């Protein structure tokens, strides 16, 4: 027998939960069901909608599922597995503590719940229409829960009439899924709208990877990591590089203890963190995840649960501002203090990325509610993009710092180049070219290498054999778990072919770059990351020069494949200013 996980809330508790309609549009159904899925410990959730959710919303998870008794209780108003008494309301740390979600949804739709908990041979299917249970039967299925909501608001014609256009509803649902995807990068999430995959996010290793999945590599590359703690408040996440922030199309996602919320004041606090590094009117994108002690935040303010109340709002705002400022540290020091001040070096590709396709849509949606792009049309930043680009030959490598960074003199200031990131970028582009346009010959080995691999790794070799071959690895299976290698690429003099192969294969098998949809991109990123010289490697002057030359010749020299910057710039003007010469 499975333990009962759902308890009926006492009236006192039910009343403490702020009253209000939960279900106002398909997106709120998606939201409630997603949160239930997460609370059930799901590791992958698939969402499917039709006609913007007006005709169908289906959420399937692989969470722990419910026993029959619990499943029935779940349809009872104010039944919740998460809270037992009013005391427990302070400091709720799961999303969907509001017992009314399922009953509220069931009350206004043709509702179907299929669920099975692990270890139970037979699960349960419950169907309801307008809140009345119409069927209760055994159903064999995988552990987890699938909720299908059809004909939403079929019995509340007024509500149904107020639904927005399908496109707008799709966007709202996308937003809900995106928000959760950012809150939980480890969760696998897909959203299918009328058969098209709108969100397809495999479990990601980091928020940065997740951002790349959701918004595209190009945009993710403009984001900087934030990691800050002041007092009991921790702020982590991503903020956009000042130089790449645009006047419109910003996204702003805030989470507290994993729960998404909206708070224009906090967004403004974050903008204060940019200080003067962005011109007025430019609105950098950000994803910030706050952790505060559970007792210091009240999440039970509004039924849609998008508002929260902090016990010490000032401390939280100060922490956010400090966090953003800290994240921008190196750039804030180098970015121009007034619009128009020239950067030491400009590259055609460093201009704000041309927003395109899906990423653009998502941004639009994200900005829709609170970004209010109505403060007058702020002019786009007039960086030095208009100036003629500096030729790489005008750059002079001065020194290697801590065997990690290269110090480069440019006509209008100083560049600091991360040697690993820079090399990674170069190798990535070269690998992409090799993989898409032809092949590179490998160095034949006098004595073949034998490498023993785990089964998953051998599979990865098999799956990527063509790409490995194109890059110059000549390998064939040898006995059960071994691989025999006859030729290896030789991308640089300090290359360790065997180690690189092992690491690439392990990364591929472990899905480290799983965020990249394109197999070739994924492979090239992995190879570039593993083949590049590492931080801490002393380089000769010739090697440093070559690295910088090649970096400048790259298509996207300013960021590595993880979206980290490769170059930090310190304009001469800024130096002059700091020394009081101007």
């Amino acid at each position, binding site marked *: 027998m499975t333990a009962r996980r759902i308890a009926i809330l006492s009236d006192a508790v039910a009343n403490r939960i702020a009253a209000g309609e939960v279900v106002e549009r398909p997106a709120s159904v998606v939201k409630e069901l997603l949160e239930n899925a997460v609370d059930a410990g799901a590791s992958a959730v698939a969402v499917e909608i039709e006609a913007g959710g007006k005709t169908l919303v289906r959420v399937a998870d692989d969470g722990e599922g419910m026993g029959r008794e619990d499943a029935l209780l779940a349809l009872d108003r104010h039944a919740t597995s998460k809270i037992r008494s009013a005391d427990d309301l302070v400091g709720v740390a799961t999303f969907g503590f509001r017992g009314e979600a399922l009953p509220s949804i069931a009350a206004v739709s043709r509702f179907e719940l299929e669920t099975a908990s692990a270890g139970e041979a037979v699960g349960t299917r419950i169907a309801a229409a307008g809140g009345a249970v119409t069927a209760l039967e055994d159903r064999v299925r995988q552990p987890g829960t699938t909720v299908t909501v059809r004909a939403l608001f079929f019995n509340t014609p007024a509500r149904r009439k107020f639904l927005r256009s399908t496109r707008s509803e799709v966007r709202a649902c996308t937003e809900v899924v995106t928000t959760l995807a950012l809150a939980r990068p480890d969760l696998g999430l897909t959203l299918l709208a009328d058969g098209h995959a709108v969100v397809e996010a495999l479990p990601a290793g980091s928020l940065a990877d997740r951002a790349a999945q959701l918004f595209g590599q190009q945009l993710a590359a403009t984001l900087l990591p934030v990691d800050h703690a002041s007092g009991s408040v921790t702020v982590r996440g991503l903020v956009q590089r000042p130089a790449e922030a645009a006047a419109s199309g910003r996204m702003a996602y805030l989470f507290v203890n994993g729960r998404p919320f909206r708070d224009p004041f906090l967004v403004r606090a974050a903008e204060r963190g940019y200080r003067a590094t962005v011109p007025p009117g430019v609105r950098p994108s950000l994803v910030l995840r706050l952790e505060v002690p559970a007792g210091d935040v009240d999440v039970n303010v509004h039924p849609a649960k998008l508002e929260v109340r902090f016990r010490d709002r000032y401390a939280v705002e100060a922490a956010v501002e400090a966090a953003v400022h800290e994240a921008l540290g190196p750039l804030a020091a180098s970015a121009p203090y007034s619009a128009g001040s020239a950067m030491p070096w400009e590259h055609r590709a460093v201009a704000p990325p041309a927003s395109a396709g899906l990423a653009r849509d998502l941004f639009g949606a994200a900005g829709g509610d609170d970004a209010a792009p109505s403060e007058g049309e702020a002019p786009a930043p007039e960086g030095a993009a208009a100036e003629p680009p500096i030729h790489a030959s005008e750059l002079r490598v001065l020194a290697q710092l801590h065997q990690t960074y290269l110090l480069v003199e440019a006509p209008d200031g100083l560049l600091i180049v991360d040697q690993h990131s820079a090399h990674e970028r170069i190798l990535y582009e070269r690998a992409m070219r090799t993989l898409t346009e*032809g*092949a590179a*010959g490998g*160095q*034949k*080995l*006098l004595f073949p290498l034998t490498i023993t691999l785990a089964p998953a790794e051998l599979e990865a070799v098999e799956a990527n054999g063509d790409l490995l071959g194109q890059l110059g690895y000549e390998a064939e299976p040898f006995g059960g778990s071994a691989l025999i290698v006859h*030729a290896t690429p030789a991308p640089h*003099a300090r290359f360790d072919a065997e180690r690189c192969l092992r690491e690439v294969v392990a990364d591929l098998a472990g899905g480290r770059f799983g965020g990249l949809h394109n197999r070739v991109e994924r492979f090239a990123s992995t190879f570039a990351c593993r083949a590049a010289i590492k931080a801490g490697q002393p380089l000769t002057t010739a090697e440093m020069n070559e690295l910088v030359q090649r970096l400048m010749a790259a298509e996207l020299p300013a960021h590595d494949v993880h979206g980290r910057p490769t170059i930090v710039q310190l304009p001469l003007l800024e130096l002059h200013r700091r020394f009081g010469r101007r």
Partner: protein
Amino acid sequence: MKFTITREKLQEGLLRVGPSIPAKTTLPVLSNILIEAKKDGLHLSGTDLDIAVATTVAAEVDEEGAITLPAKKLTEIARELPASPVRVTSAGEQRAQVECGKSKFRLLGLPRDEFPSFPHVKFDTPWRIAAKDLHKLISHVAFATSTEESRPILNGVLWDLRKDRMRMVATNGHRLAKMDVPLAEEGGAAQAELIVPPKALEQIRRLFAPDDLVEIAKSENHLGFRSEGTQVFTRLIEGPYPNYEQVIPRENDKFATVDKIAMASALRRMSIVASDQTHRIRLSFGGGTLKFSVQTPDLGEAQDEMAVTYEGDALEIGFNAAYLLEILKYMPTDEVRFTFKAPERATTAEPVGWDDAASYMCLVMPLRLVD
């Protein structure tokens, strides 16, 4: 222990042993020099566990005994002493007094017992070779060892000792160098194949003058070298060495004889554009000419050509230019003969008309060309 020695002799001994003593070590006793006073003189030894150097210098020994003293301090003291006889007396297991003229030092050492046992190499049936031949072997072969840690065996040099010849082989897996030197007198217990760390070879070059006759002998785990009063022992690298003979091509049927200097300068010119870290260049042989070409995607391209004597079907083959340049650098003659089979097979290079009893060859694996 009690002995008297001239300052010069003491300094000479310390200078010979000094470089084998590690600057940093996790075993404190290894920063010390082992001093053994025996009837036949003063024995000084030092080791970093990989290499051990022992030397004997003349001294007047009044009382036999042994102690270890800090090598660095002792060397510094010996350097600054006046040119008078030096008298050393031990007091107990780990104290010694050094007197010279009016200078007097008391040094704290460590008991002899803490010093690791020295390699037991018996020189009863040694191989004998002139040090200049040793130097020749080392300088033409050792360059080809690998510096990567991924295949430790290739960090060493294979030393193949026979009754009548010595062979040295080194490779990094991409290219290989091999030299045979005949032995003037037959020697050696039998044949032995040993893998020697290159840093031992440096010591041999340092310690033995070209005219010295060096005796070589081995034990289970060590190789020993001896000349006059000085002995060097090196720890061996675990084998087995890869079967290099199997990869030396026997069926190469295309031959090119080239002028070393002309080829090297052409290769250097090509390397400018091949500055890509792979140094990939393309060689085309046929009809009495050798054409070089280079194409580097984001840099440009270059061509060159030179006259060669070539026999065989036309051939296009890719190489890492750095490997070719290196091989040419170590070739002892002006003309070099290359042999080929096919674009993905090993190439050999040998000196032409070398006036020496030794024989030398290098081997290099091509870079696959893809169009």
